């Protein structure tokens, strides 16, 4: 490209190409070693790794292509100090200058990370993270204070979850910056302001970001303000992998803003089930009692029936009948005995009947006219008139 053409109007593509060529021709930029702190590291689906290399007040975008990235034993963490080698060029499609890294070596933990470690150790030793001082969450919060940016994605996530799970709750947003130098003192004030709004639970939250973005939640004043809050505090800062000092200080740490909202309230669907369940239990309790009373009633009824006058009268009548029976049987027996005696007496009497003797050919002799039965010769004198009775009749005779 000639100097003379530079005064002409350039297309964007021409300018970008010019910048790229300018950088690509520079021998220093083609082969540089740079030392700095990794920040904002992310990995694309294609496997390329993007990050920013920074120190106090300067930064440069870096890309580590898949091939070079696959040679690393581990990806550097945000805040980690590294030494990289590569070339600097202009990325035309993205419109930015970046360092194409082909080698990366860890130099240990960065300054921010060391500060984090030092503060965590100090507050831990002080007992600020003691599990014993963690407050338990109210099972059914009525008013939840949310300390976050009123314009961020986090508040939308939180409200979305609360609306779905437990719309009975009222939400009071205490807005604050959530990144930058002003953020930490603002978060403290936002927590402070909730004191006058009778909330029974506080969520301190923000969405994901770089270690620097999340830094306000690693400040000591924020940790202390969380512990000083009059009600339990749930933290939900960044993503699952982010741990901040605020998380350690909070009564419950949630991995994300949505998760913080989930932890904060019961689920409407589960409560519906629970209410239906209690209803069923009540019905069963009542049904059991009625069944039990019915059984007892039947039992009493049975016993009462036993004691009723009707049953007693029937019983007595039975006894009377029995006695009458027994009396009748006794009487009959006696009658039979008497009858038997009469019969045998009659038999014996019959054997004594004189007629029976006459039957066998004997005769009865009576002295006339008195009719005295002659049983001895001395009773009779010669010439006396006699009557002789035999089986078929009698005749007269004269003693000689």
């Amino acid at each position: 490209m000639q100097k003379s053409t530079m005064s002409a109007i350039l297309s964007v593509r021409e300018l970008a190409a010019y910048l790229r060529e300018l950088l690509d021709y520079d021998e220093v930029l083609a082969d540089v070693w740079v030392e700095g702190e990794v920040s904002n590291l992310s990995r694309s689906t294609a496997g390329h790794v993007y990050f920013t290399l920074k120190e106090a007040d300067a930064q440069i975008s870096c890309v580590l292509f898949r091939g070079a990235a696959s040679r690393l034993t581990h990806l550097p963490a945000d805040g980690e100090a590294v030494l990289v080698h590569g070339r600097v060029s202009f990325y035309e499609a993205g419109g930015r200058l970046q360092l194409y890294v082909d080698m990366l070596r860890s130099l240990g933990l960065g300054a921010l990370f060391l500060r984090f470690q030092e503060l965590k150790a100090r507050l831990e030793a002080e007992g600020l993270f003691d599990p014993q001082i963690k407050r338990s969450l109210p099972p059914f919060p009525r008013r939840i204070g949310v300390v976050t940016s009123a314009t961020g994605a986090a508040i939308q996530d939180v409200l979305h979850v609360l609306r779905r799970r437990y719309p009975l709750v009222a939400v009071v947003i205490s807005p604050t910056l959530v990144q930058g130098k002003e953020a930490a003192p603002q978060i403290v004030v936002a927590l402070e302001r909730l004191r006058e709004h009778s909330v029974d639970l506080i969520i301190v939250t923000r969405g994901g970001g770089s270690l620097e973005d999340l830094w306000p939640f690693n400040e000591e004043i924020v940790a202390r303000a969380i512990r000083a809050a009059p009600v339990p505090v749930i933290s939900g800062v960044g993503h699952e992998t982010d741990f901040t000092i605020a998380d350690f200080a909070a009564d419950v740490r949630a991995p994300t803003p949505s998760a913080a909202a989930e932890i904060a309230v019961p689920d409407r669907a589960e409560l519906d089930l629970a209410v239906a369940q209690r209803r069923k239990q009540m019905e069963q309790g009542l049904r059991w009692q009625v069944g039990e009373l019915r059984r007892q009633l039947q039992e009493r009824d049975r016993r009462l029936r036993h004691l009723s006058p009707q049953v007693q009268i029937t019983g007595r009548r039975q006894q009377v009948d029995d006695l009458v029976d027994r009396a009748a049987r006794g009487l009959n027996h006696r009658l039979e005995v008497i009858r038997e005696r009469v019969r045998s007496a009659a038999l014996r009497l019959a054997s004594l009947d004189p007629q029976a003797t006459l039957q066998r050919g004997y005769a009865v002799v009576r002295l006339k006219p008195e009719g005295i039965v002659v049983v001895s010769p001395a009773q009779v004198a010669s010439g006396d008139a006699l009557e002789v009775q035999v089986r078929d009749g009698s005749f007269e005779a004269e003693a000689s």
Partner: protein
Amino acid sequence: MEEPLNTEMPFEQAFAQLEEIVQRLEAGELTLQESLDLYEQGMAAARHCQTLLDAAELRVTQIQGGVEEAGEVPFDVEG
């Protein structure tokens, strides 16, 4: 005896009342009349709980102003 159910009763209170009624009914030391009364109260509490769950709409406000004169204004969002 339970306090009579009013429509202002918050969910957790109605639910706690329901729980207590269930426990007392299950303990089975009540007269039939007491049980029936309690059952009716329990059913009312359960209905109240369900109504609250069905009808609730999230209320969202935002604090405005400093610590001293802080007020609340509706938070206008479509979530």
